[in-house]
């Protein structure tokens, strides 16, 4: 008997060890970060990883030719500020080396541009500390900056934008815009985007009136889409003190001016997205989508109970949004340099996933400064060493992207099966429940959809479903419904009357006596 128990226990031990060895490797070995999304009450809930690092490509892997890094390494980047993808070409603004580097789709070095010269050689412009590169319709726009001295020997910034075609032949030049409305000494353009009608939207340092719009010929059109000054209690107090102490104090107090934007992006439809990095702007205005008039049209999360926040919800760490990329499915990727993370939002401002970490490991970046997307992969440029980290979507994210694109098009029924698969990965995801609920509502399964809409916190649809379900319920149960109501009413009234008589407190009718 003892022997048998020993054998059994030995077998059990072996089985236990075997099962431990067969456990799946922990998520940390896949990526050095965790992902989360927010429930409608603003609580962070853990979610499966949306994007995992594929590889990091540095200047050695790219086989970069020319250029010296800030630490003196040959054939490298020096503090690159921006990255832009045009079809299957990547352009990196290698700011410290005064050049634009072109990479192919495999991120191999193709060529670099240090000067844009016209075909006959009559005009040429050096690309001095290029801050941004933008390509549209086979025309390359490069934002350059130089410091020159005026007649008194005082230095001032004089930026310019040079346009060339794809082989580097000079086409156009946009210097400092000249108009009555513009009266600034230093002109330091940082970012440029070009819309479908050829207007240039220029973000320049210290221009608080908004983006500068130039037409194709370089004529100033107007300012556009400045961040609005939000009235706060502190600001009101400040204004009050200014009123009390008069004009003298205005020189010493801080002026309430719009916050500068940290980056701009134009999507294929022509909407301009702006990011603001400082925390002085309201958290729901850190990311904006501007319509042609300059109003913010980015929808806030309709089902959320707390107000929408782009970036980090906790105020401890701070958020510094530095770049934004919006793909053709209106998936918004925002780079937060404060903690080196990338937030993915859909067009309803629902945070789908977050990835990236501030570390040297694969998957981490030290100072992410630009993001772009190519073939479903996100490419993040690290300013410190000019390396590009490629993130690939997980199976969960692929399902989620399909499901969300169906939702965006209003094809709730078609998307239902994908949302159900998303739920298998992430059963805490409230928008999946809301989407399934909407699909069931469209299929007229009212009783079933109520539970889903409740989990999904979609109150408007819940109300609509409830109206239908109520109608259905009353119609089905009409034969006993009306008699029940009548019986309840009669019972209540007669009960009160009986109780009054039984307890002897029934008011006796008094006849009025006239004397």
């Amino acid at each position: 008997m003892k022997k048998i128990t020993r054998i059994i226990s030995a077998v059990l031990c072996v089985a236990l060890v075997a099962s431990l060895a067969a456990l799946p490797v922990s998520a940390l070995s896949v990526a050095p970060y965790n992902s989360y999304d927010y429930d409608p009450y603003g609580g962070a809930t853990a979610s499966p990883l949306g994007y995992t690092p594929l590889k990091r490509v540095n200047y050695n892997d790219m086989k970069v030719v020319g250029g010296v890094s800030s630490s003196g390494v040959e054939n490298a980047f020096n503090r690159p500020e921006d990255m832009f993808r045009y079809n299957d070409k990547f352009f990196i603004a290698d700011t410290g080396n005064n050049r634009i580097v072109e990479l192919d789709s495999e991120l191999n070095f193709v060529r670099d541009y240090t000067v844009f010269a016209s075909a006959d050689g009559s005009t040429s412009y050096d690309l001095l500390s290029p801050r941004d590169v933008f390509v549209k319709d086979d025309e390359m726009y490069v934002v350059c900056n130089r410091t020159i001295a005026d007649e008194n020997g005082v230095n001032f910034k004089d930026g310019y934008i040079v346009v060339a075609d794809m082989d580097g032949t000079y086409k156009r030049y946009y210097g400092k815009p000249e108009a009555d409305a513009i009266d600034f000494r230093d002109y330091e353009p940082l970012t440029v985007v070009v819309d479908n009608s050829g207007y240039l939207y220029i973000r320049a340092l210290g221009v608080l009136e908004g983006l500068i719009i130039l037409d194709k010929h370089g004529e100033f059109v107007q300012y556009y889409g400045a961040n609005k000054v939000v009235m706060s209690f502190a600001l009101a107090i400040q204004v009050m003190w200014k009123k009390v102490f008069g004009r003298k104090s205005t020189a010493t107090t801080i002026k309430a001016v719009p916050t500068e934007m940290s980056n701009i992006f134009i999507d294929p439809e022509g909407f301009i997205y702006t990011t603001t990095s400082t925390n002085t702007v309201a958290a729901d205005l850190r990311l904006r989508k501007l319509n042609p008039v300059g109003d913010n049209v980015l929808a806030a999360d309709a089902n959320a109970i707390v107000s929408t926040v782009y970036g980090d919800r906790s105020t401890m760490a701070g958020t510094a949004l530095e770049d934004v990329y919006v793909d053709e499915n209106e998936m918004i990727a925002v780079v937060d340099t404060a903690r080196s993370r990338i937030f993915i939002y859909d067009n309803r401002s629902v945070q789908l996933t977050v990835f990236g970490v501030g570390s040297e490991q694969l998957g981490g970046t030290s100072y992410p400064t630009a993001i772009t997307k190519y073939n479903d992969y996100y490419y993040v440029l690290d300013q410190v060493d000019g390396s590009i980290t490629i993130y690939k979507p997980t199976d969960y994210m692929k399902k989620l992207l399909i499901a969300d694109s169906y939702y965006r098009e209003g094809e709730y029924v078609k998307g239902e099966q994908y949302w159900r698969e998303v739920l298998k990965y992430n059963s805490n995801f409230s928008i999946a429940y809301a989407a399934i609920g909407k699909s069931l509502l469209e299929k007229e399964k009212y009783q079933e959809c109520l539970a889903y809409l409740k989990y999904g916190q979609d109150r408007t649809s819940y109300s609509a479903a409830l109206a239908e379900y109520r109608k259905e319920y009353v119609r089905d149960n009409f034969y006993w419904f009306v008699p029940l109501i009548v019986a309840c009413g009669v019972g209540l009234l007669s009960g009160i009357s009986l109780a009054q008589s039984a307890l002897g407190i029934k008011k006796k009718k008094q006849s009025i006596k006239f004397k």
Partner: protein
Amino acid sequence: MATYSALAKYGKNMIMNIEWKKLLPKYWDWKKIIWPFRVLVHPIQAFNQIKYEKTGSVGLSIIILLLWFFSNIYDYLEYGFQFSTNKVELLSILSEFMSSAMIIVLWSIANWAICTLMDGEGWFKDIWITSCYSTMPLVVTTIPITILSKVLTIQESTWLTLLSSIAFAWAILLLLMSNTIIHQYTLKKSIFSMLLTVIGVFILLLLVVLMVSLVAQFADFVMTIGRELMFRFNS
């Protein structure tokens, strides 16, 4: 038709023949139990009788207050999903208590303090009982409104607002009547004293907060001295 009326008469006689008063436990004063409901329909008469015939009960008024408190919690938890963003985890019993039962406690104290100075004739017991009985409209309507909110849509939310504001106005009116009758005030003086009472409630709250912070600071002071002494002895 005749058979129905005969049947109804028979049934009524049957119920009336039972001696209900004897069925109730002896210590149950049915007249006192029925009084809060009488306040709802005949407030002036009922308040007068509370004052002069002592038909109110302190125990019953505490039960009413607790019922109001519990119905508020039920309201918080079970209000129709389409209207409420309440969450079980966010429910604070203390704040629910402060916003329901505590108000009446503070109101009674402040009202007694003010009206004693303003030649009011009410005793504290009467003030307490009538203030508690004045919350009857809220006690009676809160749960039905919550149940109703489960079946109404967002477009029909006006009905809920209407019903709950009627109940609230009714309760305020009862409070006004009780204040007028208990202290034998004119209407004008009654309203004035009620406004003063509201200010008194705020002063009471301020005193409570001051008291709490003072006690906390004193405790902190004693603890610091104790800690310093321990450091001194340990080193």
